[in-house]
């Protein structure tokens, strides 16, 4: 399931819940910092589930002690991209893990058109399915 029934994008953690408040985001960041994960802020206007690499907003933040600094960056990013998807990721650099441990959306466009299913008929009446974001028809930056 890539969206809920009202076309709300569901990716990462907490995406079936109502929007996180700043206080809740702070608690989540606090959790990541406790584990010494480095937290980064990323944004995109192409929310296709296979679009793994979103644009980074600034560098990932290392050696922070307090969530206030990250919340500041999130709010800066929201100001710059009010109509983009913005997510917060927490990267665990422990040897052998070296991958994101948390990822959750903190900002989404006002209107989310959702995804369409495209059926392509191929040899022998087989069908190939493609998921296509309605918003992605428009050029980058004008999608939402």
């Amino acid at each position, binding site marked *: 399931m890539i969206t809920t029934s009202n076309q709300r994008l569901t990716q990462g953690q907490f995406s079936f819940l109502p929007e996180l408040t700043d206080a809740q985001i702070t608690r989540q960041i606090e959790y990541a910092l406790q584990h010494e994960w480095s937290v980064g802020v990323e944004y995109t206007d192409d929310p296709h589930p296979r679009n793994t690499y979103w644009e980074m907003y*600034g*560098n990932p*933040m290392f*050696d*922070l*002690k*307090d*969530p*206030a*600094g*990250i919340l*500041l*960056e999130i709010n800066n990013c929201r100001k710059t991209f009010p109509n983009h998807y913005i997510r917060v990721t927490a990267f665990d650099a422990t040897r052998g893990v070296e991958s994101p441990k948390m990822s959750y959306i903190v900002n989404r466009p006002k209107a989310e058109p959702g995804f369409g299913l495209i059926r392509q008929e191929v040899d022998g009446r087989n069908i190939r399915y493609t998921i296509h974001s309605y918003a992605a028809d428009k050029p980058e930056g004008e999608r939402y």
Partner: protein
Amino acid sequence: MSETIDLKALWNESGVQAVLDSLDAELIGLAPVKKRIREIASLLVIDKVRRDLQLEAGAPSLHMSFTGNPGTGKTTVAFRMAELLHKLGYSRKGHLVAVTRDDLVGQYIGHTAPKTKEVLKKAMGGVLFIDEAYYLYKPENERDYGQEAIEILLQVMENQRDDLVVILAGYKDRMDTFFKSNPGMSSRIAHHIDFPDYRNEELVAIGELILKGWNYQLSPRAARAFGDYIARRREQPHFANARSVRNALDRARLRQAHRLLESNNAIDKAALQTIEAEDILQSRVMAPVETTAKESAR
């Protein structure tokens, strides 16, 4: 409502007294500094009580400037301050990020802002200690990027008072010029604390405290010699208060080690721990005093 509040109990409960006591025990002298720290601590405790009674007054501004000659304990007190603010619940994490101009100011256009912001983000929830802050402002170069760092700093100091405390430190005269040319900075700092120079006997006491930390002690004669040493050292250029004391003791340790090895005698634990007068008298600073001492003895 005539309910009374036991302030004494609240004060004890906050754990501030322990920090202040260790401040008293481990930092010699600095009476005006300790007084101001005590006042700040009192304000924060009272503020907490007022908040419980819904007497909101807004978070007090706690940005500070520490001025004083080299080696008067500015950095040490800043570390203590971070701990104290954490105990009082004013800063959430209580860590201290110590930076200088290099950490804030970039080398080319557009490099400064991200650099400064990164440092500020790291300091959030704690204390940002900017050593030799006057280097941030270089009036002789109008394209210097220091000004940009100052502006970002000011903005955060104003808007995120709950998130971090900024402490600027530096030598008195240069800090005064710095504040004169940056009135915005001066007015945003509520506490200007001046660190006085130590008196000679205070420096001896500091020396003894340092030695105690290293498990050494001065013999009675050495203590007298050390008093002389400090009086003489003060007259010489580049005197840096407690730092000079520390360096002098470092060298005395070397001489003691050398003396013990040269003596070829079996030694006991006490000898290993004791710094004798000759370890101090051999110092370059004391060179003339030796001759005068001999002359007077003659």
